[in-house]
C-alpha cells in the first residue's frame, strides 16, 4: 500500500514518504492483526442499505471524506461498506438524540431526504447530480446548524453522518499512512516518545510547515 504519491488535487498526500503502517503488522498481536487486515481485504457486501440508499450514501460519504475525485481513486476507503456492516449488525453507539430515530432508521431517512432534495433542485438524484451540486446540498445541511432539516435537527443529522463516516475512514490503514499514525502497538509499544522523536520505522513529515490553518504553501 504505502503512502500515496503527492498530487496537486490532494495536498494532504505524500507527507510521510515511504511510510507504510502495514509494514509493521508482523509485530502486532494476532487478534489485532485479524481485525485490521480485514479492513484492507475485500470490502464486506452491502446488507443494510438498499441499492438506491447505497448510491446516495456513497456519494455523500465520498464527498465528506474528500475521495470523490473520479480522476484520483488511489487508496480509496470503502466507507459505505464499513458503515453498512455496522448498521447491519446494529453495532451502533446505542444512544440516540430524543429528536432522532435510532441510527439505522436515521440513515435511511436522511439519505432519502438528500435524494429528494437533489431531485427537486437539480432534476436528478443525489448520486448522479454534479459534484458541485452535491457539495452545495451537503453544505446547506451543515449551514442550518440546529435548525430543522426535513423534520430533523440538522446538527444531529450532521453529527450522525460525520461520526460514522470519519470512524470508517480513519479506521483504515491507508488513512493512517496519510496522517503518519503508527497503528497498533502491541506487544511492541514505543521506545522513543517525545517531541520530534521517532521509532526506527516512523517517518518524519516531509512538509512540517504545511499547517492547514495557515494555508497550503
Amino acid at each position, binding site marked *: 500500500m504505502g503512502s500515496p504519491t503527492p498530487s496537486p488535487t490532494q*495536498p494532504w498526500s505524500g507527507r510521510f514518504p515511504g511510510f507504510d503502517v502495514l509494514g509493521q503488522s508482523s509485530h502486532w498481536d494476532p487478534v*489485532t492483526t485479524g481485525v485490521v487486515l480485514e479492513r484492507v481485504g475485500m470490502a464486506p457486501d452491502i446488507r443494510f442499505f438498499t441499492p438506491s440508499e447505497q448510491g446516495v450514501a456513497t456519494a455523500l460519504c465520498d464527498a465528506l471524506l474528500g475521495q470523490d475525485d473520479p480522476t484520483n481513486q488511489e487508496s480509496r476507503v470503502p466507507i459505505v461498506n464499513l458503515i453498512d456492516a455496522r448498521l447491519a449488525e446494529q453495532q451502533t453507539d446505542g444512544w440516540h438524540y430524543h429528536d432522532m430515530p435510532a441510527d439505522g432508521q436515521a440513515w435511511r431517512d436522511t439519505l432519502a431526504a438528500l435524494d429528494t432534495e437533489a431531485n427537486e433542485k437539480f432534476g436528478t438524484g443525489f448520486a448522479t447530480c454534479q459534484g458541485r451540486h452535491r457539495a452545495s446540498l451537503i453544505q446547506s445541511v451543515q449551514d442550518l446548524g440546529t435548525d430543522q432539516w426535513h423534520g430533523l435537527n440538522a446538527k444531529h443529522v450532521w453529527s450522525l453522518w460525520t461520526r460514522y463516516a470519519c470512524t470508517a475512514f480513519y479506521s483504515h490503514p491507508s488513512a493512517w499512512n496519510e496522517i503518519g499514525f503508527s497503528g497498533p502497538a502491541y506487544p511492541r509499544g514505543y521506545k522513543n516518545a517525545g517531541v520530534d522523536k521517532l521509532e526506527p520505522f516512523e517517518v518524519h513529515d516531509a512538509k512540517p510547515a504545511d499547517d492547514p*490553518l495557515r494555508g497550503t504553501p
Partner: protein
Amino acid sequence: MSSVRDRNESAWLLPADGKHVNHQLRHDMRHFDDTDEVDLVVVGCGAGGSTMIQRLAREGWKVVALDAGPFWDPDTDWVSDEAGSHHLYWTEPRVISGSDPVPLGSNNSGRGVGGSMVHYAGYTPRFHPSDFQTHTLDGVGADWPIAYGDLKPYYEAIEGELPVAGEKWPWGDPHSYPYRPHPVGGNGEIFLRGAEAMGLTAKVGPVAIVNGRFGNRAHCIYRGFCLQGCKVNAKASPLITHIPDALAHGAEVRANAMVTRVEVDERTGRATGVHYVRDGVARFQRATMVAIAGYSIETPRLLLNSASDRFPDGLCNDFDQVGRYLMVQGAPQTAGRFDGEVRMFKAPPPEVSTEAFYETDPSKPYKRGFSIQTVSPLPITWAEHVAAQGHWGADLRNYMSDYVHWSCLGALCEFLAQPENRVTLSDEKDRHGLPVANFAYSQCDNDSHLMKAAQGVMEDLLHAAGADEVITINRYAHLVGGARMAADEQHGVVDAGCRSFAVPNLYITDGSVLPTQGSANPALTIMAVAARAAERLISTSRRGH
C-alpha cells in the same frame, strides 16, 4: 496499613507466563445455584461492584456478582485498535435529551467485568476536601453526609491496590503516591513546557498504571491504547485489581447476566433477590442482601423498572429522588499546533495534570473550578475534533494529515448537581422488553462559565508552549449521581453507608451515589466509597445486624 498483598492478592494471582488471565482461577470459580440464598448479590461488576465482592468474599461472605456483559480475556477479546474496540462500551439503546444532551456509549459507559475502568484513561485523582461540602462553602451543589476524612483511609488503601503512580500531589489534601511518576511522551512534554512558561504548577500523574512491576502485572509499554482496554495488564481495572482476589476467596462472577428487576417482599419490605436473563432464560437469584452497582444510568433505570405496589413510582423512589442530580463534567478539549512532531499517540493519554484551578476563585463570576489533563486522542477521535471545527471533504483530509503536529489537553469542569438532570424511563424498549433510559441534561450558567474559563487556560497554556494555532471541541466526560447519598430520604436515595433509605437490605455501591464530583476523574472515589460501604457492612454484620 498491612501490605497490599496481604489484603488483596489480585496482582499475584495473575499469570506470569505472558498470558493475561488466570484461566485456572476462573475455571475453579465457585458457582452458586439460583436457589441458594447468597449473602449478597451485586448487580454490576465495575469499580463499585468489584470492590464490594472482593472485600466481602475475603470476610467469608457468599457473594455473587451479575454483570450484563462478558468476562473479558484481554488476550483474545481486546485489540490495539480504535474502531475494533466498540464492544467495550455499553451500546444497548438509550435516549438522550435536554438542552445539552450528553452522548453515551464510548464516551462514558462501560460494559462487562471491569466496567468503565476497562476503557477509562487511567487518571485516579482524589476529590478535594472542599468537594464534600460545596453547599456550605460555596452555596452550590450539595454537602455529602460524609467528610473527606471519612474516605481518606479508603483512598490510601485503593491507591495501594491499583497501584497509583505520580508525583507528590500538592492540591486538595496533599499526599504522595506509592509509585514514582512515569516518563512523559510528546503531549506531556508540551503540557509541562507550557505550564513552566506560564508559571503554573503541573504534575505528572496520578495514573493507575504500573510503573515498574507489581505482582505479576507488567510495566506499561507506552503504546497509547489505554482507552481501548489495556492488553498489557499495566493499567488498573477491577478485572485485574479486585476480581482475581474475589474469586480466590470464593466469590462468583456471573457474566452475561442482565438484571431486569430487584424483587422486594411487600410484606417484609426487604429485598429477596434479583431477576435476571442469561442466555435468553429468565432466572431469579435469591439473596439476603442486594447491592446495585450499575452506574449512573443503569442503576436508576433498574430502580425505576422495579416498580411494585409498594413502590409505584419505582423502587426507593418515595421522594422522587431516583435518577435525579445526575452529573457529567464539562470536558472541553483544546488542541495546539506545533511545527515539531508531538505524536501524542505515543504514550498513555493520561500523563500530566494540574488542579491549580480546582477550587472556587472569589475573583471569578462562577463557583467551583476545573482541572486540566493531557488527553491524546487517537485518529478517529481526533477526526471528531477536526470535524467539529466545520471541516469536511478535502479540508478535513488536509487538516487530518497534520495529526502528528498537534498536542491536545482536556479539562474537567465541575458541573453542578441539578434536579432536572436525570434519568427517566423512555417509551422505547430494549430487547428484553424493558423501557430504556432517557437521560436529560441541561447546563446552568455556572457550568457554561467554567467551560469558557477552562478553554481560556488551555489556550494560554498551549500558546505558552509555542503553539501557533489552537482549536477547541466542547464535550462531556464521566457520570456520577442519579441515586445520591444524603442525610435523609427527602434529599437522596441512600445514606452515608450506601444503604437505601427505603429498603433496609438494599445497597447502592457505585458512582450514582456521589452527590458532587469536583473536577476529578471519579473512578478512585467510586472504589473508595464502595470499600467504605463494604467495611461498614462487615462491621455491622459482625455486631449481628
